[in-house]
């Protein structure tokens, strides 16, 4: 049996790497220059010839109009990048495809096979459009099948594979060129579990370089009175050149204490050329980067706290990514987290190695099908199901004879390990022609098994496949979803379809109802179902990642308000989303998910957002002072810092830096969520009062009408509320309060008069209904049901009345114009 080829690729912002795994050993792929790292830089010359990697990187300063880097940060946006000489524009995924093509070619040169499948790593907090763009890049590069893995999970898999016995909790601190990810993992019994993720999609080594550039520009202003602004498009090339010089200086400063930085004629100004001539000291660089390192540490501490862990409970910290080589970063992280760093692991290639291991556990053999299309051994065909990689030493192998295949049928089957050390008992086939056998694996080795058939006459019956291989080692069964996904409802709430951490693939269907009618034939009339990603309970605070639209010109008949829509969302293992809406009234299914794209970030829209955030911040601050809430005042200081950073990015976006524009867009969304938290901090006394009241109400209902299990669950939820209250965690408290409310409601509706009370309340709002005549008819029906004590009918009436009551227009606009409730 030929050796399998599992390929893993780390498609990085700055550098990319490929690794191969053959079931036993990991091999790093070298490029034409003999290096493991290929710079993620693409150049297209006037003839349209494409150069990738180090040769392209060397031209980034001298020929910036035709050389592009850091396009990973624009993945999933509509931002096209221009190549002036060739008069071409390319989407970020097309440029990523060039890097992937180059790596694929390197694999072919080193191992003799051009892989058709691979696993590609993406940052854990990549949004769906960014993941979709990565898959598209792989397809353009010639991969017929690709799976995505989150970078920290890949690092942990690789670190776990090389460790002998590591049980307990770990943290993977992954600081790449453009993104920061942190993951809390737990290894037990050879199983790796991702306990939680956090991160910052826009914090990376590049921001460290930018911080040092800002420091240099501040010195120019101080010493020479020259004000160089990132908003000025004239300086774009010079700033890139300065950044490159700073990047090199930063690396040198990890070995020396000070270094002169000299760039003659760096900037052209109205008063002539300006030289950059400053002395960079290690202390100065460290001071410029320290707030960014602290930002990453805060993310780590937040992740630990959200899982009730102290840094002292960590077994180790795995460092991943180039910037983690900075001595000051290591010292700062070590001081804050305390846990030892995992040694003997290469932070630059760990992700690619983990991706290759994951390809093995997914059975994603990269050899072209042509290789496996060599003449199959003849024999009765069997469908086999077994884990390609297993942490369990005794996994199951399940098989079933293929129906309709001719040839002798075995009466018994057995499995024999190729090393002769183990064989299964002879197992009879079930009535369905199937067998389930447990096998024994040799630890940390590829284990090949022969599948043997025995006829009723005791003679061997050849079976196909005749053999298969299971690799024993650390596995991650199903990748977890990094952020919750749901549908924005017209009242600005979110109906969560998949919770964060849900195993992928996943599929769920819920019934929604339309809030208004859609007229047949009208193109302007659209039912919009926005799909959002995020953890906050309001739709406008979550990221819009797609929308399913049903237009008037697509429907067979007009769709009334309050029509039922059965919406199914589906995510594959790589986190790719598809959505289907079934409208029973029309017997039609709609499947096209529109706008799977990160929204554009124009300087005008960013400025608008910035002004609004500034006003909101100032109102909040005065309110916090007036009410005397120091905790909120302190939290607003962080918001101030974030606002200043966003201002800098908006300025750079005005100067033509699309990446900074995206960073600002994301920053504004995060700031919005931060201000929302601060507002709930201000409302803390009211929230505490609400919690007290709701707990009392729920306790009373559950005590009267709840089951013993509900009582136990309520006790548990009340304890969780108390913990959140003690820690002043408003979002957590609201989350647990929802559980309390649910349990209370379950018990409440068992009260004999519950639906009567709900009916009275709904009937009092009948004049607001979207269809008053229908609502009044329902009220009459409800009254009759009440008189005749028909409770079930009364319940139905109330539910129908609820659906006719209006949603607030303002809330609907906030909810990305959702047309469903």
């Amino acid at each position, binding site marked *: 049996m030929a050796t399998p080829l599992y390929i893993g690729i780390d498609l990085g912002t700055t550098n990319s790497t490929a690794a191969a795994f053959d079931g036993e050993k990991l091999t790093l792929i070298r490029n034409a220059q003999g290096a493991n790292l290929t710079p993620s830089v693409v150049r297209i010359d006037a003839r349209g010839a494409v150069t990738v990697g180090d040769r392209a990187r060397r031209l980034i300063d001298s020929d910036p109009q035709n050389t592009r880097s850091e396009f990973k940060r624009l993945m999933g946006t509509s931002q096209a990048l221009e190549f002036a000489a060739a008069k071409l524009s390319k989407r970020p995924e097309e440029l990523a495809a060039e890097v992937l093509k180059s790596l694929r070619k390197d694999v072919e040169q080193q191992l003799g096979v051009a892989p058709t499948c691979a696993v590609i790593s993406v940052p854990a907090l990549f949004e769906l459009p960014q993941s979709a763009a990565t898959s598209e890049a792989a397809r353009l590069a010639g991969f017929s099948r690709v799976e995505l893995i989150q970078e920290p999970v890949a690092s942990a898999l690789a670190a776990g594979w090389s460790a002998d016995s590591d049980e307990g909790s770990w943290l993977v601190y992954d600081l790449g060129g453009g993104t920061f990810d942190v993951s809390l993992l737990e290894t037990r019994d050879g199983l790796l579990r991702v306990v939680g993720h956090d991160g910052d999609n826009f914090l990376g080594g590049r921001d460290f370089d930018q911080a040092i550039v800002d420091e240099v520009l501040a010195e120019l202003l101080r010493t020479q009175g020259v004000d160089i602004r990132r908003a000025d498009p004239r300086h774009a090339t010079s700033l890139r050149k300065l950044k490159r010089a700073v990047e090199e200086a930063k690396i040198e400063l990890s070995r020396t204490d000070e270094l002169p930085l000299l760039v003659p004629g760096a900037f052209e100004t109205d008063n002539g050329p300006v030289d950059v001539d400053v002395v960079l000291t290690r202390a100065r660089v460290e001071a410029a980067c320290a707030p960014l390192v602290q930002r990453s540490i805060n993310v780590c501490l937040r992740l630990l706290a959200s899982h009730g862990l102290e840094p002292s409970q960590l077994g180790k910290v795995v460092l991943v990514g180039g910037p983690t080589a900075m001595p000051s970063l290591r010292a700062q992280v070590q001081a804050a987290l305390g846990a030892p760093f995992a040694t003997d692991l290469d932070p630059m290639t760990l992700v690619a190695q983990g991706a290759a291991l994951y390809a093995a556990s997914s059975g994603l053999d990269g050899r072209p099908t042509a290789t496996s299309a060599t003449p199959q051994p003849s024999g009765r065909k069997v469908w086999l199901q077994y884990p390609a990689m297993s942490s369990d030493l005794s996994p199951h192998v399940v098989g079933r004879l293929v129906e309709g295949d001719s040839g002798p049928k075995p009466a018994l089957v057995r499995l024999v390990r190729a090393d002769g050390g183990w064989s299964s008992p002879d197992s009879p086939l079930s009535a369905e022609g199937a067998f389930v056998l447990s096998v024994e694996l040799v630890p940390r080795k590829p284990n090949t098994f022969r599948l043997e058939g025995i006829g009723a006459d005791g003679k061997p019956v050849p079976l196909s496949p005749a053999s298969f291989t299971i690799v024993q080692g650390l596995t991650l069964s199903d990748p977890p979803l990094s952020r919750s996904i749901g549908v924005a409802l017209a009242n600005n709430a979110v109906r969560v379809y998949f919770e964060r951490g849900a195993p992928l693939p996943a599929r769920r269907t819920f019934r929604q109802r339309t809030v208004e009618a859609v007229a047949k034939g009208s193109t302007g009339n659209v039912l919009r179902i926005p799909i959002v990603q995020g953890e906050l309970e309001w739709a406008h605070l979550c990221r819009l990642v797609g929308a399913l639209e049903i237009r008037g010109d697509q429907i067979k008949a007009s769709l009334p308000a309050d029509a039922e829509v*059965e919406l199914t969302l589906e995510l594959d293992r790589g986190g790719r989303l598809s959505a289907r809406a079934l409208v029973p009234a029309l017997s039609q299914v709609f499947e096209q998910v529109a706008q799977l794209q990160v929204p554009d970030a124009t300087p005008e829209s960013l400025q608008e957002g910035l002004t609004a955030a500034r006003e909101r911040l100032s109102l909040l601050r005065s309110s916090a002072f007036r009410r005397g809430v120091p905790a909120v005042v302190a939290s607003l200081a962080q918001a101030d810092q974030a606002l200043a950073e966003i201002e800098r990015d908006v300025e750079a976006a005005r100067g033509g830096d699309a990446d900074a524009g995206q960073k600002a867009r994301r920053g504004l969304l995060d700031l919005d969520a931060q201000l929302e938290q601060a507002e709930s901090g201000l409302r803390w006394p009211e929230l505490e009062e609400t919690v007290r009241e709701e707990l009392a109400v729920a306790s009373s209902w559950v005590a009267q009408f709840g*089951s013993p299990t509900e009582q136990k669950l309520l006790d*548990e939820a009340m304890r969780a509320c108390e913990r959140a209250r003690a820690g002043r965690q408003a979002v957590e408290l609201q989350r647990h309060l929802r559980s309390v409310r649910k349990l209370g409601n*379950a018990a409440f509706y068992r009260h004999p008069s519950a639906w009567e009370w709900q009916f009275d309340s709904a009937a009092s709002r009948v004049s607001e209904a979207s269809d008053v005549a229908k609502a009044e008819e329902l009220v009459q029906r409800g009254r009759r049901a009440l008189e005749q004590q028909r409770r079930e009918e009364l319940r139905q009436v109330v539910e129908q009345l609820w659906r006719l009551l209006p949603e607030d227009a303002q809330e609907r606009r906030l909810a990305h114009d959702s047309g469903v409730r």
Partner: protein
Amino acid sequence: MSLTDRDVFSRFRENAFHVLGLRPSCTRMEVEREGQKLLAMLELGLSEAAHYDTPVGRMPRTAELVRSSMATLRDPATRLQHALWAQLPPGTPAAQAPAKEEPAPWPEAPVRLGWRRPE
């Protein structure tokens, strides 16, 4: 029957221990092993894996349900919740099944939505 009772019913119906056919005292490795076996059997369409028993009756088993049950039991907090419900004796008032499953909105619906293969 109120919607909330339906929630209670689903806690029995979708209990991860029932779905995987395991006892609340099972080890973590048993969860992985049993889940892997059931997924393999479902993939091959073996009738033995097609249903599971709960205190409210026999339920159809799907690969999605098995995967999410495995994830539920990997997390100690969610495992505890499911263990509570799995230990509850059958026949409690809250555990009464609805009179009938709701019919599909139109006959081909489950197939179009990918839940069921065409007969």
